[in-house]
């Protein structure tokens, strides 16, 4: 059958076609708005393209009615970087904790899962109410930061579970037998091994915060982050400026994704090369 012979069965071609169509379905619409964002000044919201220009990108940053886009970027990017940092540190630490038994492990796990699946808007309402009742003004660097972490930490924790379930404990035992302290074992053995997973957590931390709208809604306070500006534009701007904003924000996401995935790929290929070199050396020695 299929899995053993060299000839591919007919199901392969059917499923390959399904997969190809799915990829077109995923990327096609996005590609359309990137193309449409380069329209001429008289362009509209749909095809055909009415000339090509960078007019709408300029309009994005210089027109009054599109709102404070530059300011939104200047808040969203630092916020995403803070969320990334805290998500990496807190999930790594919690991931280490969950490798041992401790009282409350089950409870914290279920709270994390609940935090992952509770509607973001409901959380936004709760956080907004809390700050209101305590008379603390909500800001992007306080309430929104916390609301974003309640969303990124469960993701980070689940990724750390997956990473640690594959980590062989004998490396740490070997380090300890050779006299390494707990801190040295963590710093020089565990972290280098799980580094690709940590980069994965960082990628989730950044992108989930950078694009988060529902949890930001009542928590950012008077100054909007980028997704709130985008939301405001979807409801009242009917020009390609909206698409231009989509192109700019997605370009930033893509840069982050490429940096993260390339560094993971580099680490992995370096490891493969080292392993092959080691195996060769062993063969030569025997």
């Amino acid at each position: 059958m299929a899995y053993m012979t060299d000839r591919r069965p007919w199901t392969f071609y059917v499923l390959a076609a399904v997969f190809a169509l799915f990829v077109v379905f995923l990327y096609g619409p996005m590609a359309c708005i990137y193309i449409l964002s380069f329209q001429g000044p008289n362009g509209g919201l749909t095809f055909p393209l009415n000339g090509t220009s960078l007019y709408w990108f300029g309009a994005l940053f210089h027109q009054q009615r599109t709102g404070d886009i530059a300011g939104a970027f200047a808040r969203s990017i630092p916020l995403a970087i803070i969320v990334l940092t805290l998500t990496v540190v807190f999930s790594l630490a919690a991931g280490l904790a969950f490798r041992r038994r401790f009282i409350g492990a089950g409870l914290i796990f279920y709270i994390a899962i609940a935090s992952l699946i509770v509607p973001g808007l409901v959380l936004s309402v709760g956080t907004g109410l809390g700050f209101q009742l305590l008379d603390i003004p909500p800001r992007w660097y306080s309430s929104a930061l916390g609301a974003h972490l309640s969303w990124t930490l469960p993701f980070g924790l689940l990724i750390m579970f997956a990473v640690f379930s594959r980590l062989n404990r004998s490396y740490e035992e070997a380090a300890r037998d050779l006299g390494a302290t707990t801190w040295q074992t963590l710093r020089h053995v565990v972290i280098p091994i799980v580094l690709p997973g940590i980069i994965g957590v960082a990628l989730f931390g950044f992108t989930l915060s950078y694009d988060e709208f529902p949890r930001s809604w009542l928590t950012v306070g008077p100054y909007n982050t980028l997704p709130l500006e985008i939301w405001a534009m979807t409801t009242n701007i009917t020009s390609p400026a909206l698409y231009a904003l989509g192109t700019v924000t997605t370009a930033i996401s893509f840069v982050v994704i490429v940096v993260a995935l390339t560094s993971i790929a580099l680490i992995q290929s370096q490891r493969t090369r080292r392993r092959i070199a080691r195996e060769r050396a062993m063969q030569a020695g025997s």
Partner: protein
Amino acid sequence: MKLAVPAKAVPYLEVAPLAIVLLLFFVIPMAMVFVASFFDYNMTGIIKTFTLHNYIDLLTTPTTFDLYLETVKFALIVWAVTLVLGFFVAYFLAFHVRNPLIAIGLLLLCTVPFWTSNIIRMISWIPLLGKYGVFNRALLALGIVDKPVQWLLFSDFAVIVAYVHLFTLFMIVPIFNSMARIDKSLVEAAVDGGANRFRVMTEVIIPLSKTGITLGSIFVITLVMGDFFVVKIMSGGRSASVVMSVFEDVNLLFYPPAAASAVVLLIIVTLIVSFILRVVDVRKELTG
């Protein structure tokens, strides 16, 4: 330097930052919603007196039931579509792509859009589905219709397309993860034992992918039930969802009734999720 921390305290210290953040920014906000659902309110704001009015109003308004029906309808349709699509995409990657590196690469190709803005991905359907959008122009040019089809955009159809576009990934990843762990020799054994393609699928692959299917289903159903902006934009105001009614109430500063409908929604979602979780112990599968 030697830290004087007893070994037993270490896991508590390690988990503390995460636990504190979840307490402050998840448990307490949820408690706030619960408490506020029993408060009274008027045009100027919240009045801190106990009342059951919000729940009584909610449960006696006939539109509440319709709203839940609408939300559950979308959840079920999207669940069915993403399950079939996600299952076959995952199956293709796990069993038909022979080079595991290429399989991971193709999986990443499906994952990249997840790391970009949901709102932007949603609005990218507008130039395609609109009255003079790409699809209508194509249909007109091919002579299939003689005037633009109206139900493509600002309709239930558009809402479902956007949901499937945004959420299928949440099916693919967990199902792929389960399938990647299936020992290929089990499939060979089934084939040697005389099972045909269909029986391999129903008696080997589907049972062993159960965890992934369960997790994916929880993700998709809770995402659809928690959504408001896809329904709001893509239905053009023709459909609504429970969370959208929360959104509109809060926009009018009617916090207590918004909180009451959020509490009812959370109870229903929790019931659905615990029903699904009875089927399989997800935690054992994730940590083990």
